[in-house]
C-alpha cells in the first residue's frame, strides 16, 4: 500500500524567500507529525495534528514556521523568510492513533531536503 509521501523531495531556495512543504499521510491515519533532521541536532519534533484537536505547536522554533492540515489529511509546513539555519531534512510521519492502542507506530515519509542559500 501507499506510504507517507512528501513533496518536493528537494528544495533549494534563497535566504528570505518563503517555502511550502507538503505531506500526504497514509489513508486513515488521524495523527500527523512534522520533524526536522539536521546535522548535529538529530531529529526534532516540530508540530503534531490529531483529528480535530488543536495542533501541538510546541516544537516550532520560531513564528516563521507554521503548518496546517486541511480536511484531516494533507498537511503543509510553511517557512517564511527562510534563513540558512533552516537548511535540514523535514520529515513527516503519520499514525493511526487508535484509542487503547499500546504503541502507536509512526510511519515516516522520505523527507524534503531543504537548502537555503
Amino acid at each position, binding site marked *: 500500500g501507499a506510504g*507517507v509521501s512528501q513533496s518536493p523531495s528537494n528544495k533549494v531556495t534563497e535566504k528570505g524567500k518563503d517555502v511550502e512543504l507538503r505531506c500526504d499521510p497514509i489513508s486513515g491515519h488521524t*495523527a500527523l*507529525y512534522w*520533524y526536522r533532521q539536521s546535522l*548535529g*541536532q*538529530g*531529529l*526534532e*519534533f516540530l508540530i*503534531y495534528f*490529531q483529528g480535530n484537536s488543536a495542533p*501541538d505547536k*510546541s*516544537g516550532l522554533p520560531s513564528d516563521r514556521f507554521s503548518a496546517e492540515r486541511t480536511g484531516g489529511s494533507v498537511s503543509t509546513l510553511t517557512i517564511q523568510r527562510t534563513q540558512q539555519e533552516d537548511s535540514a531534512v523535514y*520529515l513527516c*510521519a503519520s*499514525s493511526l*492513533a*487508535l*484509542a*487503547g*492502542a*499500546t*504503541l*502507536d*507506530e*509512526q*510511519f*515516516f*515519509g*522520505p*523527507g524534503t531536503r531543504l537548502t537555503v542559500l
Partner: protein
Amino acid sequence: QKEVEQDPGPLSVPEGAIVSLNCTYSNSAFQYFMWYRQYSRKGPELLMYTYSSGNKEDGRFTAQVDKSSKYISLFIRDSQPSDSATYLCAMSPITQGGSEKLVFGKGTKLTVNP
C-alpha cells in the same frame, strides 16, 4: 543536557561482528523505547520497540532497556552489509489512547564492511 543522548559514531565493523548501540536518557516518564533504522535518503522505519524494562529479541536483533540506569541498547548479531544505516533511538511517555511526539537520539551511523 539533552533528554536523549546517543553517540553519533560513525561505527565501522566487519561482516559477522556483533554490534552494540546505546542511548541514555534523563526523563523518567519515558515508557516506550524504540529503535528506528534509517537508510541514506530515506525516512526512519521502526525496527523494534520495548515497553518499560526488559529484553526483546527479533531474529538477529535484541533490544534491552534498563530503566534503573536510564540506558537502552540494541544488539545486532552476525551483522550484514545490508545493516549499514543510521540507527536512531526514540522514546515516549505512556500513551492514553493517543499519540505522543517522539524524542530521538542523534542517531549512530553504522557501516558493516564485507
